[in-house]
């Protein structure tokens, strides 16, 4: 139930769309898609097996198209961090547990370590860095500062993106809904109280 309401993980966006629709030469093998639900025709074995060699892909990150050359095995988190120097998405747990690498993909919060870089071609990726500049600071960042939902700050950008995604989808959410929605992120310092207040505030502003 939580998962439905929150839509944190799952095939909300379609890697199949990428495989079907992308004009790129990159087509993933059947093995990579077999676990994903979807229309029957899309589950047909792919006609081409993707090579393990590096491929040049175009990623749309924070509103900008960026070309990069990566092996198909490179995760989105590593492409963002190591190729694009967007280190706001943190590599903490090595196993899709802690949420520190949360980014928005087509508006929905997703762990960047659960996607290959080549999977998100054609989608819009948004990282925490885009939420603050000299000109403009996003409401989530402002609320995190107000309630001091920050200590060492290492898990914070992941939390910020989880809150941003949740509030986009659930404007006016109750405190209880915020609490249930943000169970996908771990903090060690102990900022949960501030995060909850910041999330509630942001959800009300988003209304």
């Amino acid at each position: 139930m939580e998962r439905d309401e929150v839509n944190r993980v799952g095939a909300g966006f379609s890697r199949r769309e990428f495989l079907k629709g992308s004009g790129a030469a990159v087509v993933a093998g059947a093995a990579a898609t077999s676990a994903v639900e979807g229309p029957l025709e899309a589950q047909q074995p792919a006609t081409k097996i993707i090579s393990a060699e590096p491929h040049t892909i175009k990623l749309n990150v924070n509103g900008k198209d960026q070309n990069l050359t990566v092996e198909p095995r490179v995760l989105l988190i590593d492409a963002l961090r190591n190729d694009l120097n967007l280190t706001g998405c943190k590599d903490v747990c090595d196993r899709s547990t802690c949420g520190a690498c949360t980014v928005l993909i087509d508006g929905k919060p997703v762990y960047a370590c659960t996607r290959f870089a080549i999977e998100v071609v054609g989608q819009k990726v948004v990282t925490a860095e885009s939420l603050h500049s000299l000109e403009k600071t996003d409401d989530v960042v402002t609320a995190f500062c107000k309630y001091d939902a920050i200590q060492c700050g290492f898990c914070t950008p992941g939390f910020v993106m989880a809150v941003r995604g949740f509030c986009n989808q659930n404007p006016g959410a109750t405190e209880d809904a915020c609490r249930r929605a943000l169970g996908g992120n771990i903090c060690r310092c102990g900022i949960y109280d501030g995060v909850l207040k910041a999330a509630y505030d942001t959800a009300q502003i988003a209304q």
Partner: protein
Amino acid sequence: MVERKIGWEPQGSHTLVGGEIQRVDGKVKASGQAKYTNDINTPGTLFAKLLTSPHAHAKLVLLNIEKAKGVKGVKSVLAIAKVGDEIQYEGWPIVAIAAERPEFAEDGLRAVEFKFEPLPHFVDGSDFKGAVEADVTVGGKPLKLTKSVGKSGQGDVEVALKEAKHVHRGTYGIHMITHMSMEPHGSHAAWDGENLNVALSTENVSGTSGQYVQPVGVDAMNVNIRCDFLGSGFGSKSTVDEWDVACAKLAKATGKPVRLMLSRTTEMQIGGNRPSAFAEVTVACDAEGNVTAWDSRHWGSNGLQGSIVDHDVTPYVFLPKTRQSVSTGIATNCSPERPWRAPHHPQACAYTQTALDDLAAKAGIDSLQFFQKNLNLTSLPHIYGPELEIAAKLIDWKGKWHPRGKGSGNGPVKRGVGVALHTWDGAANQSNVTLKVHSDGSVEVVTGSQDVGTGTRTCIAQVAADTFGVSMSTIKVSLGSNQFPKAGPSEGSSTIGGVTGPVRRTAQQALWKILDLVAAKYTVERTTLTARDGKVWLGEKEVCTWKQAATLVGPMGLELYGGPVTEDEGLTNHQVGGVQMAEVAVDTETGVIRIVKMVAVQDAGMIVNRLLARSQVYSGLIMGIAYSLSEERIMDNKTGRFINANLNDYKLPRIGDIGDLVVEFYEPESEYKRGVIGLSEPPVISTGAAISNAVANAVGVRVPVLPLTPKRVLDALKGAKG
């Protein structure tokens, strides 16, 4: 006349100090723009990864790195261990590989050929009998795993126990946990000629350069350490470790910058842990509930060294006149202990104050009254007394306490409340600062300290801005470099006092010099001038603006150096007291405990920043909830492995698991006047005992070992039924 005396203003007179001021680096942190060591990607940076031992005790009999050298993208392979080495714990570093991408480094690790010859091991520090009987060797010689690490006593305990009205005997325990810093240990190293430039994830920026000298072969003067942002450490990041040395060596071998951060599993295995502690306790009181005797025997492990919780903190806070205790350390094939937030206090508090609570129940006395009655056995009754009253009101102790297991309601979920209290030294560390007032009025403060998450930059800026009567944006704080004035490590809640003390003193001295210049220029009496709201005042009359005053220092600016604080200056002090109360709901059918509410009342002398200070107490409560309910380093004695060394199975609370947290500072004038005292360690100490006591109150039996997992709760309930 305005008295010129180093010190803080009277309570309520500061403009910024003591206020709720947001972090100056909050936005860059929240938006992921802050660069931690883990994020340093200077051009050409290579990524390094470690191969570590899967065995707790073994001999390395084969190591071949040649194939790994030929793997695509691999730039350098460094053997850290050599054939014949005796590996003494799981996670022991064997090989480090630097490659163009992290994926290539992993390919390289897979190509390393190695073979271990396993040796007998012992990893279960809770098993005293097993430790005595274990057949473990080191260098082929038998190793005695248990050793006495402390014995003390005063008075005749036997007589006191005989004369007591109530005697309680119990066995208690608290398991080993790891630091689990979000940013793992590690560094980014780059050579520039003779210079070694290191971004190090450290709580000890000023004290680490020398640790590179011998292992790397570099002069200390050529080692530049930086740490702008630190993804926490909790006491575990004060040293340069063998993997940091490997990183510097790989950088030298490749002529490129190299970043080596531990993987999460390795971080949990070797990045630091808090010792376990188990105790057999006998404690007694008279008919009125006055505690008359304590007798304990305890054991536990901190890994290879074979020590345990510091004997001096047993019993904890409450010191009956007649008491004795003996401690036995158990050596285990586990990585060594590192200081964990309030070292040893949480464990000692847990086994002392749960035993006292059990004695109160046996004597039929309300736990709170029992603790209050015995405050004369503590060193801070004047603090704990009022704090207990405040906490009792905040949690509604009178309305919620009931005799053990006798709460209302017939359903399976039982509620209860518990109390515990703690102390911590929190003296300021030895930090130096330079403070420069520029002729445009802007102010720079520079120190070799670090921000571990408490808000060092913010507190420094606040104190300087408050002293000069200017806005926060007028102050620039630079820290995190060993090129800056030497500052003590962030250990034991010593940083905020350590840096704000010298900043306050130096800012006051700078201000007085500037006011003297203003007095000369505007021909007014110098000691009547004050600075506030960006202006200089003679009483209620404006003399000039701060900017005009600052021009008087001339184009070179005014630069002062501030040495470490001493307590006789009145800026800082040590020793605080705090109390915590917990309300829990326990499902007696599933054993699941839910935190309903936690109340923390904390003394910290003078609070510098109320917003950030509250965060520290929330932090203590939440880390306390973690080690109380779910967090445990589970060592499997059969395989010698830390079987839950990952964030799926090493259970930390999430946002829905913490209940309602209430934080209150106890800051009467008497405590305010003492100045700044460290705050981060104390609130993590008594959470365990408070929660355990609340559970005992709820279900009527003691669940003796932390964390209070559902299985331990059900086992305790089953044991009570017989």
